């Protein structure tokens, strides 16, 4: 048993679990033919069958059962405010499973030249009274019962009265914001707390204008929209939902990482050895001191950021993504690039941190401008 727990602790470190997920993701939601072939070859599509559901369900439940009887994980897991996250894990995965199952079913129908399952003769409609209102009524009653049972079983938490002098360690934001708090490890608050949320909101609103693929509207489908699907699911499930799970279950005092079955040691020492890009370049590479001129000091960082966000898409538009650029036009293309590249900046920065202990790409604390 301890062996299994150690394995879980090891696997859940963000470096490992995030990498595993990221590598597995294109095989689970294959965006290209090559990945699709591997998906078929290795039978990953079987996740979306009843048997697949059974195994997914059993493995999550297995984890929570072990967790429940573990003295340390039990503390985090049974916190009343963490119950919604357990519900989130189950319901999100269930819902994606169901959607994908229907999507694969529809894909097969379309291949056979049939209409999607949702299709009905437009003249053959049903009456809202009673066919819809009774479903609504049942859904409403069942849900209310569920809510009442939940409320009777689990009391709302109330801790000590507020005390501005006693900062709890760790101090956590409400669970639905823990993805943002987790980003704070890698980015300064002006990015993780302000710019990224704004980009998430505006970027999500821009989705229908960036995805101009007309297929797959009004029915579950995967094959016809696999690239868009992959990007959205990666952003949503990995960069948002998974970070919430890490922030809730695996972050203890001082926001240090703890495996699920580890004790939250408030004195855990994690060496802080992060180095800025400018120091890498000027001190380690060129063996000089940092220049006093701020712009000169951070020049490499500026080149890197501007190159990534602006020059690279320009070059791509002329070369590899020429077709996309012509198909999309300049405005749509730059919007897609801006939001897409900003989104992938998060995993990129995470890996720069993990691999090279990179602190900031541009570090101008004088102006509160760190990237």
């Amino acid at each position, binding site marked *: 048993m301890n062996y299994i727990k150690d394995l879980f602790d090891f696997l859940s470190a963000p470096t490992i679990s995030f990498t595993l997920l990221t590598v597995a993701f294109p095989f689970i939601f294959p965006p290209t033919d090559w990945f699709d072939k591997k998906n078929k070859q290795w039978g990953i599509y079987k996740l979306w069958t009843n048997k697949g559901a059974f195994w997914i369900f059993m493995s999550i439940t297995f984890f929570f059962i072990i967790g429940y009887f573990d003295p340390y994980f039990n503390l985090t897991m049974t916190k009343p405010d963490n119950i919604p996250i357990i519900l989130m894990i189950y319901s999100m995965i269930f*819902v994606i499973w169901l959607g994908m199952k229907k999507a694969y079913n529809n894909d097969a129908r379309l291949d056979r030249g049939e209409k999607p399952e949702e299709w009905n003769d437009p003249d053959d*409609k049903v*009456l809202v009274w009673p066919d819809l209102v009774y479903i609504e009524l049942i859904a409403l009653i069942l849900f209310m019962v569920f809510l009442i049972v939940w409320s009777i079983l689990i009391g*709302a938490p109330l801790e000590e009265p*507020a005390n501005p002098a006693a900062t709890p360690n760790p101090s956590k*934001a409400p669970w639905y914001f823990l993805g943002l708090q987790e980003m704070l490890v890698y980015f300064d608050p002006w990015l993780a707390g302000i710019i990224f949320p704004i980009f998430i909101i505006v970027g999500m609103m821009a989705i229908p204008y960036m995805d101009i693929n007309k297929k797959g509207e009004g029915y579950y489908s995967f094959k016809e*929209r696999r690239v868009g699907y992959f990007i959205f699911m990666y952003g949503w499930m990995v960069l948002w939902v998974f970070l919430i799970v890490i922030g809730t279950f695996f972050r203890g005092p001082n926001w240090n990482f703890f495996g699920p079955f580890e004790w939250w040691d408030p004195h855990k020492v994690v060496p802080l050895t992060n180095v800025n890009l400018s120091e890498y370049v000027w001190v380690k590479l060129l063996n000089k001191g940092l220049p006093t001129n701020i712009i000169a000091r951070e020049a490499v960082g500026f080149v890197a950021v501007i190159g990534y966000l602006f020059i690279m898409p320009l070059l791509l538009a002329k070369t590899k993504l020429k077709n996309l650029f012509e198909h999309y036009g300049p405005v749509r293309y730059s919007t897609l690039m801006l939001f897409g590249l900003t989104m992938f900046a998060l995993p990129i920065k995470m890996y720069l941190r993990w691999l090279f202990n990179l602190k900031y790409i541009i570090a101008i604390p004088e102006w509160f401008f760190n990237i």
Partner: protein
Amino acid sequence: MAEKEKKESLLSRLGESQVWKSIIRSGVPRSRRQRMYAVLGNVFLHLHPARVPKHAVKIGYTWCMGGLSFFLFVVLTITGILLMFYYRPTVEYAYTDIIDLTEQVPLGIMRELHRWGAHAMVLTVWLHMLRVFMTGSYKPPREFNWGVGVLLMTITLFLSFTGYLLPWDQLAIWAVTVGTNMARAHPFIGHEGPGASLLAIGDINLVHMGSDVRFALLGGRFVGEATLLRFYVLHCIAVPFVAMIFMAVHFWRIRKDGGISGPL
């Protein structure tokens, strides 16, 4: 058998009575025409069209998540009003009022219903969004309504966040402190944000701890009495008001965009 007939005649007599007809406007909906009229002639039900495509009423298509989000909003409004009877948003009373309303009020699960309902609403809204994505329902002509939906989701999170402070316990003020600390780093208008020092007249900084966006949100330099009042007003009046407007637009647009999406 005889009894059933009696009941039916009672029902139909009720349905034909002046009182019933004055309220419901149509008799007991039995015929097709009456059933359509039952939907069209009712202010709440006429949110729906009279007839919908077959797939639209299947749980497997919408998962009922949009409807449940709205239902939860209603539940939260009702339980929230009940909570407001007991709760006073001051540093002196807030915490003890919360204790009182669980311990002194008969059948005191209002707080639980409200709190778990709020968590559940965040979930249902997210699941609703997932289903809208998976069925590709954001594609034209529904782009705008997807945008409205994204704003609704933001509003839902903000509603939940402002409510988090009100119990005035350790959990509350520190979660809100962590959350609102972000605002000091807002570019230009947060005192620790990039560009804030540019907004100055001569030597005088316009954006400082006592004037930046965080100060405006908290009504002070730290989470205190003024913050509690601010968050209370935002939570009980301002944000629900905005949410209702956006929901009205959302529902209206579903109809205008041709009803629930479906394959052509």
